[in-house]
């Protein structure tokens, strides 16, 4: 059987795809299959191609820290509120304690929360960048994600530097209930301060974004950008299908759908994002 043959010669990718407990931001190993077209891709080529499939141009999900390396000059940056850690306000417990879920996420992803914020240079321009880490509890926004976002925006104000956020998130973090819901207000409110200071904010939507993150900080960019075919919406497709009992149209909630419906300004390929950000920001910051 073809599959078992691959399993033998391509053990790392096969295992990485079966288990979800992989530590690195992208499946490691010499070979990897594209989640979209299933083409087997050579690791170093894929890395050189910024984890965009060489066959079908699918933008493979990448980790937050990995993405930062594509953005900051020489991969040099200073992190903002790096040590802030989540708090279990509600002593929330389902089949597992929230506390335990947090420790598991920390061990698995080797990050302290689902948002990493940093400042540094992008094509020699001072910028502050926040990036969601989807592998950390689905990139969900709890109080510390909200707080780190606020800290990052305040840093941008302090430095008078443009602010960029790459979002990818399942939405609000259920385990913090109302604390989490209110982060939508908190992140939206702090962005008003940025506006008052006339500092630009570019929101970059990457696959996927739903719920509380979509309905707050991700939609509030002075300019909203999406990676190709990123899935972005308020309600998840399953919830919508259960409600309306109709099969969802092809391409529903994809970047191209958002562009067509006037919700984003542009779709930008991963290989062009850094220069596009620079070009847009240099125009907005010219005065």
């Amino acid at each position, binding site marked *: 059987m073809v599959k078992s043959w691959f399993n033998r010669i391509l053990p790392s990718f096969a295992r990485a795809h079966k288990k979800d407990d992989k530590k690195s931001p992208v499946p490691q190993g010499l070979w990897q299959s594209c989640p979209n077209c299933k083409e087997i891709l050579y690791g170093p080529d894929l890395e050189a191609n910024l984890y965009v499939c060489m066959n079908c141009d699918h933008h493979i999900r990448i980790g937050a820290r990995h993405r930062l390396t594509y953005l900051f000059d020489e991969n040099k940056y200073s992190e903002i509120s790096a040590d802030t850690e989540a708090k279990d306000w509600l002593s929330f417990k389902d089949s597992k304690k929230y506390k335990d879920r947090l420790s598991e996420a920390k061990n698995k992803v080797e990050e302290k929360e689902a948002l990493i914020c940093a400042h540094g240079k992008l094509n020699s321009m001072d910028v502050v960048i926040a990036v969601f880490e989807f592998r950390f509890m689905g990139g969900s926004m709890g109080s510390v994600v909200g707080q780190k976002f606020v800290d990052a925006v305040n840093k941008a104000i302090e430095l008078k530097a443009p602010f960029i956020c790459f979002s990818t998130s399942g939405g*609000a973090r259920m385990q913090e209930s*109302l604390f989490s819901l209110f982060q939508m207000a908190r992140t939206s*409110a702090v962005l008003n301060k940025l506006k008052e200071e006339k500092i630009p904010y570019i929101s970059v939507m990457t696959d996927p974004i739903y719920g509380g993150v979509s309905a707050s900080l991700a939609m509030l960019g002075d300019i909203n950008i999406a990676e190709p075919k990123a899935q972005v919406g308020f*309600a998840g497709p399953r919830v919508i299908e259960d409600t*309306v009992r109709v099969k969802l149209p092809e391409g529903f909630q994809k970047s191209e759908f958002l562009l067509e419906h006037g919700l984003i300004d542009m779709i930008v390929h991963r290989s062009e994002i850094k220069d596009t950000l620079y070009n847009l920001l240099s125009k907005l910051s010219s005065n």
Partner: protein
Amino acid sequence: MAYTYLEFEKPISDLESKIENLETSTKNENAVSKEISDISNQIEKTTKEIYSRLDIWQKVQVARHPHRPHFSDYIENIFTDFDELHGDRTFGDDRAIIGGLAKFKNMPVVLLGHEKGKNTEDKLNRNFGMAQPEGYRKAERLMKLAENFNLPLITFVDTPGAYPGIESEERGMSEAIAKNLSVLSNLKTRIIVIISGEGGSGGALAIGVGDHICMLEYSIYAVASPEACASIIWRDKSKANEAAKAMKVDAESLIKFGLIDEVISEPLGGAHRDLGGSCNLISDSIEKTLNDLNTQDIDEILKKRYEKIMSYGLV
């Protein structure tokens, strides 16, 4: 509609039916009236007992009680001279959200709130209080109206959540909600928010940011409805009871966390038992808050509102 008793109210309904039987009995009139008065006392005692130790899931049931007063009841009984204002000027008029001008004790105010609907037809017409983007955009238009004419904004929150539909997504549900959060957080007028029934997810928060956030005693407020949370976290909708408890959706819990500013008491047995009494309690709270907010200048109010928003979940 026949009166609906909740499951945990069975001891009360048993006593009520005893009274009904007595009222039709042919026994000596004095004896009957004595017995009825005894049972009435018992009913009050039993109701007090039951309602003094409701668990969170029981409170969820009261918040969703079929007879629970809705926004339209509060408009009629707390305010006067209501002029409903319709439409988002772009797409349509969403009847899941009612908005308009009214007077509160002769003071003009802007009102906004979810309306779940009264009977089957009304419920369908109002989409069970689940608004679409045009509902939130109508709300935004009226928020701006309040700001421009320096009128206090009073909102009533009662929704299971924003409507999850294909057209909602096409018309930018996320953007509509996000925009309102942004607008409310620095709207230059006084804002009072009252969670009167169910406060569910971003669809609730989109008219729920303000200077003074109150919850009625038996209302609930959470990041998602207990059913939605149960299906996401437990992968089982029937675990809504556990989800409601884990999320601590009740007013009593949420005020302890400092996430809300006031709990407005409800009459014995819940707001639906005594609409007039309930409206008086809400009205007193609004009056007190407005008097307090009116003594502060708007810059002070905006500063405090911003600090309040930033304090949510501050670690």
